[in-house]
Each structure stands twice: as C-alpha cells, then as structure tokens.
C-alpha cells in the first residue's frame, strides 16, 4: 500500500474547508433544509392541505406567514415545499454516485471495449437534455417518490461515470497502483482498495452538484405541471401559483423562490469549499 495515499490527510482538509465562512454558511443551509425535509410533517404547525380561511390572509398569530389563495397555512406548506424534491434528489444522486463510481472505475481502469461501451452509452444519455430525459422517464416510470428517485439516478449516473473514469485513468498510471498490480492483486481489490479511496473528495463534490442540479430540475418539472402536483406543496408549484397575485402579495413569490435558492446556494457554497479542499475544479453542471 502506497504511503502517500490521500485518506490520512482528508480530515484536516475538511476542517480547513469548513472554517471558510462561505462553506460554513453553505453547510448550515443544507443542514437546515435537510432537517426540514426529513421532519417537516412533525415540525410544521398544521397539515399542508387543511383549509382554514377563505383565501389569502396576511400573517397572524395563528398563521405566521398567513394563508394561501385556498386558505391553507402558508408556513406549513413552505416548510414542506422542498421535501419531495430534496429527498428524491438526495436518494437519486446517491445512487447515481454509487453506480457511476463502479462503472467509472471499470471504464477507467480496464479500458478497451468495456470502456468504449460504457462511454458511448453515457454519451448517448448525456446528449439528451436533462429536463427532456426526465420528462420521458416520468412518462415511463410515473412521478411518485420512488419513480422520481430512480429517474434522478438514471439521469445523473453518466456524468459521474465520466468524472470518475477520468480520475481513475490518471490514478491507474501512478506508481502505487502499478505496485499493487505487480503484487498480483485481483482487479476488484485494486479498484476498491487502491483507487476508490482516493476518490472521496471528488465523489462528495459530485454528489453535491448532481443533487443541486436534480433539485432544480424536479422543481422545474413541478412548475411545468409535470411533476409534483396539488395538494402536495412544492416550491416550483408555489412559485407558479404566486405569479397570479405577485403585485399585491409579492412574498408568495419571494418566499418559495428564496427557499429553493437558499438550498441551491447552500449546496453550491458547500461544493466550492469541498472542491477547494480537495483541489478539484469546481465546475458545476446543470
């Protein structure tokens, strides 16, 4: 085992990254959103579909952010508005990173026909604009939570494959990998024990950027009326509804837009910090 393998240095790098104020803000924002997404049904003051008033009302003691056009508690809906998108994106992106890493390792290390086959398929998938691909897959798989998670996984795996493949190919040329080969270690062992551990930072960054992209796409899908639908609250849907009263009640646009953006900004700040810590080029994808 090569002594200069990276893992030992990771914690200090992470710590360093977290000290940067932007990264700290990012991580905090993401943490808040995660807590809300996971626990909003229990934290939120009211049910998201229950009707309390006859339409729009301003903030009050009972309803801190007032009620929406149908008289539902706006705070509760806002708190749950990112739930589906965030959970679906997190699960889907995690699966994409897992599957993409395995395929990328194989393609990058083995090369040849396997590499060609895997890369041409990723080329083909990536040639279809993400939102269009998601729309097709919604047609095929439906739009419940499980289906959307699978869809996110399918759409974002190829991007991960590419990045991991490139990194694997460069790592495979390093001495300590050559040494392992010379020792006659089996290929799966080389991939998982020698190469994979060096992908940590890269994979964290990949997970985050794929997730932020997926969240944006899932909310766009709801905005377009193809994704999450009434009465389930969703920021994309709420933005769409808000536009009808935006001049008299602008906060109905501002709040869900800010909620969604703060989540994406949080992820992007965190990605920037992570990427800097690991010396990875911070190219997001959308």
């Amino acid at each position, binding site marked *: 085992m090569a002594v200069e393998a990276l893992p030992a240095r990771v914690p200090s790098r992470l710590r360093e990254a977290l000290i940067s104020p932007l990264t700290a803000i990012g991580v905090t924002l993401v943490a808040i959103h995660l807590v809300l997404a996971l626990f909003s049904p229990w934290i939120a003051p009211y049910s998201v579909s229950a009707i309390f008033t006859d339409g729009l009302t301003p903030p009050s003691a009972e309803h801190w952010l007032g009620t929406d056009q149908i008289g539902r508690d706006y705070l509760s809906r806002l708190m749950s508005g990112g739930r589906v998108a965030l959970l679906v994106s997190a699960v889907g992106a995690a699966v994409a990173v897992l599957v993409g890493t395995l395929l990328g390792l194989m393609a990058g290390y083995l090369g040849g026909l396997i590499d060609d086959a895997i890369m*041409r*398929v990723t*080329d*083909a*998938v*990536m*040639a*279809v*604009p*993400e*939102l*269009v*691909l998601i*729309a*097709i*897959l*919604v*047609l*095929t*798989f*439906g739009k419940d939570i499980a289906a959307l998670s699978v869809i996110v996984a399918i759409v974002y795996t190829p991007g991960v494959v590419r990045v991991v493949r490139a990194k694997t190919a460069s790592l495979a040329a390093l001495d300590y990998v050559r040494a392992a080969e010379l020792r006659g270690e089996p290929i799966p062992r080389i991939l998982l024990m020698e190469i994979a551990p060096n992908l940590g930072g890269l994979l964290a960054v990949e997970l985050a950027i794929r997730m*932020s992209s997926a969240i*944006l*796409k899932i*909310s*766009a899908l709801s*905005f*377009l*009326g*193809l994704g999450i639908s009434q009465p389930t609250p969703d920021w*994309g849907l709420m*933005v*769409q509804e808000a*536009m009808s009263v*935006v*001049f008299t009640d602008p906060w109905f*646009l501002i709040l869900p*837009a800010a909620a*969604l*953006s703060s989540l*994406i*900004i949080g992820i*992007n*700040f965190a990605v*920037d910090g992570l990427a800097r810590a690991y010396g990875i*080029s*911070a*190219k*997001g*994808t*959308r």
Partner: protein
Amino acid sequence: MHPILALILRRLALSGLILTMVSALVFAGTEVLPGDALDATIPADELIFYTEDDLAQMRAELGLDKPPVERFVDVFTGLITLDFGVTLLTRDPVLPGIWHALLNSLLMAGLAVVITPLIAISLGVAAALRPGGRVDGLVSGGTLFAYSMPDFVVGNVFIIVFALQLGWAPAVLMIAESAPAWQVLAAAILPVAALTVSGVAYQFRLLREGMVDALGSEFIERARLAGVPEWQLVVRHALPVAVIPMLNGTAQFVAAILSSVVVIEAVFKFPGIGVELIRAVSQREVPTVQAITFLAASAVILSNLLADIALLALDPRVRRRYGR
C-alpha cells in the same frame, strides 16, 4: 487521406453511432420499459377502460404487435429519416404539427448559444484582468448567485422587472406561431436574456478558472516580466487557452440550454418546441415525445461535432495529438 480530414470523419462516424444509441435509448425508455408505446400511453390505473380486444386492435394499428427488434428498426428508421409517424390521439402526422414550434425554438436557442459565450468571455476577461479585484469579486459572487437561481424564477422576475416595471419588453408575446424569423427574434429578446443567465454563470466559472490558471503559468509570467501589457496577456494568451475547456463542454452547455428552453418557453408562453414537449408528455403522446427528444439530442450532438472541429482549429496540441 489528410490526417485532420480522417479525424473529422472519425468524429462524424462517432456522432452517428451516438445518435443511433440515442434512438435506442428513446425506444427503450418509451416502448420497452413500459411494455410498448401503448403501455406508455395508458397508465396502469387506466387499463380498466380497455378490453383485451381494444388493446390488440390498437397494437395492430400502431404496428406494436410486431417483435421488438422489428419495432426498433421501424422506430429507428423513422427517427433517422425524420419520419416521426402519427400522433396516438388524433393520428395527425407528428412533424408538421411541431414544425413551426421547432423553428422558433431553434431561433431562440441558437441566439442563446451564440450570446452566452460572448457575455461569459467578456465577464471572464474583465474579472481576470485583476483577479481578486472588485470586478472579479462582484462578477464571481453574482454568477454564483445567478447559478443558484432556478430558470423559472429568473424568467418570472425578468417579466416583472423588464416587461411590467420598466416596460422594455412585451409581457405578452403577440406573434403567430408561423411568424417571420425577425418577429420571432424580436419577441425572443427577453426570453433569451433570461435563458443566458444560468449559462453565463456556468461558463464564466469555467472560464475564470482557466484564465487564472493560465495567467499564473510560467510562460505568461515571463511575458509579463518582458513588459507585455496585462490586457494583452489576458486577451491574446490566456483567453485562447481558457476557451478550450469551454469548447470541450459544448455538448453539456447546449444540452443545458435546451433544458432551460423548455422552462423559459413555458414562462414566456413562447410558441416553441418546449411547450409542445410539455403538452406531449402530459397527454402521453409517445411519438411526439420521441421526435422531440431525438431532435434535441441531434442538436446537442451536432453542436458538439462543430465544437470539436473548432477545437481542432484552435488548439495545436489537439491537432498534434490526433494528427499523428
């Protein structure tokens, strides 16, 4: 054969291969996974409306009773020859129904594809002149923020600010679907502006990184010591190097623009292909969805091919590497 020509031909062949695989993917996604096009059209909970005989008859009518391989060949030849068949609901030919929308979107997306890198490069140069300076900080922060804004929020905010508050652009695009190109382009100004926001942010970040790297290189350092003015270093030397990763990312960039086109068209009610796609998906109109997907992927692959060729012209290293 000239090595460069051979290289271009190889790229062309590769593009053809990928396009074939896209057709296979579209076919698999819409017809194999759900069973067939009819199953994709009829969600499970609606099967109750059909008798077995109905389904068999519809399958025969749509040619779905043939074995999968034969069906794939049908779909594939259809897609490749731009014969997209007829819609499931009304049995109208698909292509004439989306033709004008296609042209309109092509105009809008084309405009965005040209403008976005120009803005990104201008901002990138401005920022790279004094890395860490006020301009750099402003633009870098701004793009990080813009990059985090969903397209549908940007589009709506643009309508509120530029159309309703400032009155610089129409709030309702009053053009016919078959309007002449100049009218479509005029109507597309605000949508295109909204469309470029996330693209510019993404490309700027790529470019700035490349420029800062290039400006820190030994070669530039020597030139700087030799007294070459900073703007010349940036424009003449750093920019061409930094543009290369941008060109490398063309496929991704064009695909991202096309994703945004769908959203922006919906926000502005622009008479384009994105609106048609949304309608087709809602109505589970598989042939139309297949056609639009295939055309979108073709656009991505074609622009990637063009970028590859541009790269050959721009980057001597690539020529050397492949030109052996």
